[in-house]
C-alpha cells in the first residue's frame, strides 16, 4: 500500500472518478460520494475531461481502445493523493487491470502501477484508508446487500460497506442466500446473451425477495441497474439504491428505476 496515511491536519486530495454510469444515469451517487469523502476529511476534485475507464472495451477484447482510455485516465488522475470511485468494478479496472493492460507500454507501465496503488472503491477507501468506523444516520428499514463481483473478488470489498452501514440506526442488514453469486449483468454480456443474463438476474431478484427486505443496497451501478431492472419487470416493490446514497443520508432521490 503506497497510500498516504490519513494524518490530522493534512487533507488528502482526492480525484473523484465518477464512473460513466453514475455520471450519466445517477449523479446522486456521485454527490453522495463527494459528501462522504468531504465528511471524512478529504478535498475533492473532479477532473472535467473524465469519461469511461475503458472496461467495456477491455472486456470485449478491444485492447487498443482500452489502452487509449486507460492512458487518458492516468493522465487525468495521477496527480492526486488518491483516486476514489463509487464502484468496485471501475476501481478494480484501474487497480487490477490497468497494470496488466499497460505492462508493455514503456511510457505508462510504471504510471499504471502507481495509479493502481492509490485507486480505491469508495466504501473501502473510507474504512481502510481514512479510518472511518461507522457512519451515523437513521433509517428504519431492513435492507439486503448485494456484493458486486469485481469489488468482492478483485478488491476484497465485503465487510467495509457493512461496517459503514453499522452506524445507521434502525437499519437491519439481511444477507442473501448466495452473497457470492453474480447478478448476471456482466457488462456487454447482458446484451449479448440477454436470456441467460435475465435468468441469472431473476434468480438474484428471487433471493432478494426471499429476504423480505423492502430495500436492496450495493456498491456498483451496473449491477444495481440490472437488479432494479429485473425487480421492476417482475413487478416488485423492493427499492434499489447505491450504498453511498444511504450512507450520505440521501433518501429523497427516487430509488433506481423509480420516478418521483
Amino acid at each position, binding site marked *: 500500500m503506497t497510500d498516504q496515511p490519513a494524518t490530522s491536519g493534512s487533507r488528502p486530495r482526492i480525484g473523484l472518478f*465518477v464512473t*460513466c454510469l*453514475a*455520471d*450519466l*444515469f*445517477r*449523479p*446522486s451517487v*456521485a*454527490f453522495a460520494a*463527494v*459528501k462522504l469523502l468531504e465528511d471524512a476529511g478529504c478535498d475533492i476534485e*473532479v477532473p*472535467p*475531461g473524465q*469519461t*469511461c475507464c*475503458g472496461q*467495456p*472495451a*477491455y*472486456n*470485449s*477484447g*478491444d*485492447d487498443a*481502445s482500452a489502452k*487509449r*482510455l486507460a492512458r*487518458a485516465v492516468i493522465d487525468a488522475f495521477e496527480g492526486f493523493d488518491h483516486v476514489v470511485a463509487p464502484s468496485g468494478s471501475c476501481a478494480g479496472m484501474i487497480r487490477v487491470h490497468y497494470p496488466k493492460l499497460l505492462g508493455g507500454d514503456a511510457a505508462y507501465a510504471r504510471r499504471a502501477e502507481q495509479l493502481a496503488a492509490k485507486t480505491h472503491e469508495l466504501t473501502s477507501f473510507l474504512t481502510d484508508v481514512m479510518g472511518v468506523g461507522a457512519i451515523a444516520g437513521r433509517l428504519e428499514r431492513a435492507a439486503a446487500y448485494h456484493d458486486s*463481483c469485481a469489488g468482492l*473478488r*478483485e478488491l476484497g470489498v465485503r465487510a467495509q460497506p457493512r461496517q459503514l452501514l453499522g452506524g445507521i440506526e434502525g437499519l437491519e442488514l439481511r444477507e442473501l442466500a448466495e452473497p*457470492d*453469486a*453474480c447478478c*448476471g449483468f*456482466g*457488462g456487454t454480456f447482458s*446484451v*449479448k*446473451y*440477454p*436470456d*441467460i*443474463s*435475465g*435468468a*441469472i*438476474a*431473476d434468480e438474484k431478484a428471487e433471493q432478494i425477495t426471499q429476504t423480505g427486505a423492502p430495500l436492496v443496497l450495493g456498491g456498483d451501478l451496473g449491477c444495481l*441497474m440490472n437488479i*432494479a*431492472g429485473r425487480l*421492476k*419487470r417482475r413487478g416488485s416493490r423492493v427499492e434499489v439504491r447505491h450504498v453511498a446514497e444511504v450512507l450520505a443520508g440521501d433518501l429523497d432521490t427516487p430509488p433506481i428505476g*423509480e*420516478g*418521483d
Partner: protein
Amino acid sequence: MHADTRHFRQAAGKALIDGQLQKALGNVKRGFIAKRAKARDALPEFDRLRDEARDIKIHTLAHLDLYLSRFEDKVKAAGGQVHWAETEAEAREAVLEICRAAGAKTVTKGKSMITEEIGLNAFLEQSELKVVETDLGEYLVQIRGETPSHIIAPAVHLNKEQIEHDFRERHKDLPPERQLSDPVQLVAEARQVLRQAFISADVGITGANFLIAETGQTVIVTNEGNGDLTQTLPKVHIVMASIEKAVPTLEDASTLIRVLARSATGQEISTYTTFSAGPRREGDPDGPQEFHVVLLDNGRSSVLGGPFQDMLRCIRCGACLNHCPIYQHVGGHAYGSVYPGPMGSVLTPLLQGVQEAAHLPYACTLCGRCEAVCPERIALPDMLRRWRARDFAAKPPLAGAKPALKLWAALAACPRAYQLVTGAAIRLLALLGGRKGRIGRLPLMGAWTKHRDLPAPQGQSFLAQWKAGRRK
C-alpha cells in the same frame, strides 16, 4: 471430437426453458457448492495447499519433457508400454491396434474425458468393438446416446425418473413389475448389467488423474470402484491420458489429490484412489497381462510457453463449472464442447481453434468466481478476455458489436463530443422514463429490455451539474 459450439445461443435458450433440466441443475448448486465450502472450511490449510498444488504444476509444466520421459522409463521398467499420440487420430489408432492385437471383442471403460475428447467410443464401435461405459453416469449417458454434461458428473442433467425410463426401454429383460423408483434400485439394476460387462471384457480402458514420473504409476480417483474392476479384470489395461497429467513425485500426487477431492465433490479423499504400476507381476493375485499408456498431446505441447500455458495446470475438478452462473443456468450440453463451463471455454478454443469455439469465451459474465474456487488458481477470466481480444482483432471492422464498441471508445476518448452526445442521450432517456423513472421497451436496446426495465437517467450528467457549480 469436434462438437458444435456455434449454436450456443440457441442451445442455451432451449436449456433455460427445459424445466426438467433446470430442476436437475439445481442439484449442482445444492450439492457441489455447499459440500466444497464445508470441506474447505474444515481444512485450515486449504488455501496453502492450493498454492502448493499450483506450484507443483507450474514446476512440472516447465520441465514437462523431463518428467514425461522419466515416467515412460518407469512404465517400461515395470513391463508396461507407452504410446505417444500427437493427434486425436493417432490416439484412437493406438487404442484400436492394442485391442486388435488382443483379439478383443468387448471393451469396458472407466470414466475418461480424454476418450471423449478423441471420440474414442464411436471410433471403436465403428471397428466392431462393443464398448461399455462402467461409471454409472457415463453408462447412463452412453445408453442415451448423449455426451457428458459435466466433467466429473456426466449425467448431472438427468433425474431418476428419466433414468428409470431409460432402463425400462433399454434393458430388455427387465420385468415390468421390478421397482426402480429409488436410486438404490437404479444402482442395483446398473450393477447387474455392468457385472456382466466386467467379466466378459477383453480390454479395460481408464483415464488418469495423474501420471507419477518418480514411480511410473498412473492414478485414478473414483467413487464407484468401477475403475478398479475395469482395469484389473480384463487381460489388457489401457490408460488414456493427456501429457499435462504428469507430476514429479508420489508426494506431489498426494498434495494434488487433497485439493482435487475437496474442490470436486467436497470429499477429503475420493472413495477409491487407485494406483496402477504396470502389468501383473509374478505372484500378483490379479491384474492385467498387458499395461499400456497412451499419451495424448492434441495441441497441448504448442500451448506450452504461450499465454495459455496456465490452463494446462487444470486438474479437472469441475469446481469452476459448479460455481459458474452460466453453467448453473444452461448446463453443460449447451456449450456444445467436450469440456463445458469456464475451463472448457478456455480449453476448447485451444483444442479446436478459436474460429470453431468463438462464442465460448463470451459465455461468461467475468464474475471471477471460477478463479476464486480453482484449486490451481488459474486466472480463467483473464484467459477468457485474452480469447476475446484475439477474436476481436481477427473480426472484420463491421462484424457484430465491433462498430458499436469502437464508436463508444472513440467517443469516450474525446470528452467534448462524449459529453455532447451522452448529454443528449440521457435527456432523451429521462424523458422516455417519464414519471415512472424506467423504460420498458427501447429501440436498439431490445436485448436489455427483453427481461429487464431500463432505469431512466436522472436527467443531467454529474459532470455538467458539477461544472455548473452544484455541489450536492
